[in-house]
């Protein structure tokens, strides 16, 4: 047990230490040239205490930093009564989150990887202003409590991305991949990038009205972010969620089954325990369109008379990190795929949109299920792409528009946008409101 927990035991009712040490190396290319190498060696710690029944917290660089415990105790003097106890001893699932080879990656290895991507892409797209990068992170996370929790995890993450703006345009195509192990360039991803980049040589603006829309995995955040905001136990508790009192009722199309799966094999986001030291497990959120339940951390769970679901994370919709208080949030949200290829689904669209991203999501009323974004993607006519979208917005409400989903693709990919975790298939929505010509 870390000495600060031993010290805290003398002066507080309970204490919890979160300590994260990470070492990362990243290389970045812009317009086909190596621009920068970044190497970070960072420690971050947070301490929560309960003293005289009240909760306090403090943040620091190292656990033995002067004033760390005193700041937490001062915070507790002003804090609200704690309705919960910090985690106790628990058995955690065994997860393969650490890869010895990935842990040894150096900047030269990441440069070699990027040069390989560059070489393959430049053969087919000699004039594209290619950007790319690769990153390796090695992390040690410790969560200890005065109640006996002692959670420790070593993990590695290796990732790469590449992209390019369409010629003369503000938007472009972007692909990425990540995992626990040393990265291998995925040729399918490269081929798809080349195809999509070439689709964007022309622009097209659909007319204003309702049209079928297919979301790529990267664009699935348009549905997932409002849903996850609504399923957060905090929003349910405060009755700001449109899903309050809807457990057991259909809220989305019966084609949709959605889990939070922290145990997702090979995922760099997989976790055996949450940021409170509570064991994680796979949990159904929506099954065949029917809402299964909300997610809780210890604080919100206690307020609602529900145990933590192992979803107490230092993450919110738009931020994460040591200084973010623990909230109910997701680890690896996954949508179960369908059985038809996305290309076959696209070929069935008479006129519609293939959406790869959306700008301005955070300005909308997303907690209520609504979104209105500038559409990034392609215009489809008679099953074929006729150009990249220009001057086009799409809008809708997931609890109305995502009741009617035509199909889900058999392929899945990493979710994008603000999520950057989990997996999703392509989602073909019967129609969304489009503002174009």
């Amino acid at each position, binding site marked *: 047990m870390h000495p600060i927990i031993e010290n805290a035991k003398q002066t507080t009712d309970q204490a919890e230490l979160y300590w994260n040490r990470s070492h990362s190396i990243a290389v*970045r290319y*812009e*317009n086909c*040239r*190596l*621009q*920068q*190498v*970044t*190497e*970070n*060696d*960072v*420690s971050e710690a947070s301490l929560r205490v309960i003293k005289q029944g009240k909760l*306090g917290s*403090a*943040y620091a*660089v*190292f656990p033995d930093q002067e*004033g760390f415990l005193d*700041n937490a105790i001062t*915070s507790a003097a*002003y*804090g609200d009564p704690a309705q919960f106890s910090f985690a106790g001893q628990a058995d955690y699932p065994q997860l393969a989150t650490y890869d010895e080879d990935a842990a040894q990656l150096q*900047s*030269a290895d990441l*440069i070699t990887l990027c040069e390989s991507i560059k070489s393959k892409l430049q053969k087919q797209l000699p004039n594209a*202003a290619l*950007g790319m*990068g690769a990153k390796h992170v090695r992390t040690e996370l410790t969560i200890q409590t005065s109640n006996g929790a002692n959670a420790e995890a070593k993990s590695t993450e290796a990732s790469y991305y590449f992209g390019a703006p369409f*010629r003369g*345009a*503000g*938007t472009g195509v972007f692909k990425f991949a990540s995992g626990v192990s040393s990265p291998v360039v995925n040729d399918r991803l490269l081929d798809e990038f080349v195809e999509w980049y070439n689709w964007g040589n022309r622009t097209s603006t659909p007319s*204003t009205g309702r049209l079928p829309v297919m979301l790529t995995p990267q664009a699935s955040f348009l549905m997932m972010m409002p849903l996850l905001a609504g399923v957060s136990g905090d929003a349910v508790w*405060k*009755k*700001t969620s449109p899903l309050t009192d809807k457990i057991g009722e259909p809220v989305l199309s019966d084609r949709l089954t959605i889990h939070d799966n922290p145990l997702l094999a090979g995922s760099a986001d997989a976790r055996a325990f949450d940021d409170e030291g509570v064991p994680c497990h796979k949990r159904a959120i929506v099954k065949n369109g029917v809402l299964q339940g909300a997610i809780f951390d210890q604080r919100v769970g206690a307020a609602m008379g529900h145990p933590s679901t192992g979803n107490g994370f230092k993450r919110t919709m738009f*931020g994460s990190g040591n*200084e973010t*208080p623990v909230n109910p949030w997701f680890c690896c949200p996954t949508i179960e795929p369908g059985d038809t290829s996305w290309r076959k689904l696209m070929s069935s669209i008479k006129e519609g949109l293939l959406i790869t991203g959306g*700008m*301005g*999501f*955070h*300005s*909308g*009323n997303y*907690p209520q299920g*609504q979104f*209105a*974004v*500038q559409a990034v993607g392609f215009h489809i006519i008679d099953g074929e792409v006729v150009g990249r979208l*220009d*001057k086009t*917005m799409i*809008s809708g409400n997931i609890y109305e528009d995502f009741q009617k989903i035509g199909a889900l693709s058999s392929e899945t990919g990493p979710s994008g946008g603000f999520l950057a975790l989990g997996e999703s298939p392509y989602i073909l929505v019967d129609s969304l*409101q*489009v*503002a174009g010509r």
Partner: protein
Amino acid sequence: MNSTFANVVSSLPADYADLRFEENRKVRIVYEGKELTQVATTLTSGGHVRAYANGGKAIASFSDPGRAGPIAEATCSSAMLVGNSREKKLKVASAPVITESFLASPSRDPRKVSLNEKLELTTHYNELVLRNPNVITTQTVYDEFTSRRIFVNSDGSIIEYELINVGVFGMIVTKKRDVVQRVRFAFGGNTDFAPLLNREQDLAKQIEKACELLDAEPAKAGVYPVVLDPSESGVFIHEAFGHLSEADGLQNNPSFRAKLQLGKTLGKPILNVADDATLEGLPGSFEIDDEGVRGMRTPLITDGVLSGRMHSRETAAEFGEPLSGNMRAVDVQFTPIVRMSNILIEAGNSTFDDMVSSIDDGYYLVGAKGGQTSGDQFTFGAQWGYRIKGGKLASMVRDINMSGELFSTLQATSMIGNDVKFGERGGCGKGGGGPMQMNRKSGKGSPHIKIDAVTIGGI
């Protein structure tokens, strides 16, 4: 410590190197509804080193100051590795050597205000919001950030400086049947504690709007002429134009670099835009940037013509343009990137009534609600709005997001008001090729403006 760090950078075999060491203190008090969820003090420290060697660049952040030397040496080696692969070598523009201190001295220093007073103030505003029967929850936040920084570089600069940003901000959440609406409020946003006090009337106006929105209709999708209030037009010029004036975003983007040559006509002669770190008491005001260059005023658009842009020492060298003092990092885990200070549209001659009466069918949009940009594409939201019919303000509307393309929208900016106003709370998210940096110290100002055509997403 200053001389130790100075020795570290001066001993490196680099073309140029600098090191920034920070001691940061944050105080954060958060109410969510009736619940006081956080009263926290954060003490962090650490360093960030940058090295240019052999025409390449590398950077590193570290927590342990005792490791500054070996980390700086490794960073210099990485820079050489980058340089080996580059035919086009990176350089930094020369800048004055500065050996000065720039310490903050607000009229009421938040560092000298007791935690108890800060908590009482936050509680007071939160309770005022909760008293309204339409309010179902709140988020009320007291947010104080103070940073003491040491900057040294291989040119010989040794600079000590302080940054302070303090504010109370929050969200009012109202509900009627199935309609839930959110309206923001923000007081303060600069170095001084005094503007946080006695803001009850301002808060009451925001609560009233959050209640009125419950009976408003959603906006209708389509392309419309719009009048933007100063808060909205500040976000518009920040998102749509400001980010494209940050040279690090253009540096490796040949097509936009070609489109944005100085001297290009971007708008009508009524349009004048500047970035100004020297304006007092605004969120984005500062004396020295995180690259050791003084903050200054930079004209960006003069009489409708592109007249300047914001730079780092690296981009100033590459573009052959003057330094602008716009390099900033939110804290030690981040490298400085080119950021707006206080961007503003300067006053024109039109009145608000002139603008509204010139529109037959459009919208008046009020209250910044964030935005996003990618190249010449931009979006931004409005907290509320009003339909304009036959030259007059009509019914209130809600759930408004709009988008456009920079060059056509600047040309379509047809009227500029005479009533410049700056937002109190700053804020801007930018990655600049690295992790997202949420910068509190980014101000926005503008008068009312009229744009002839904007795409609005809605029902």
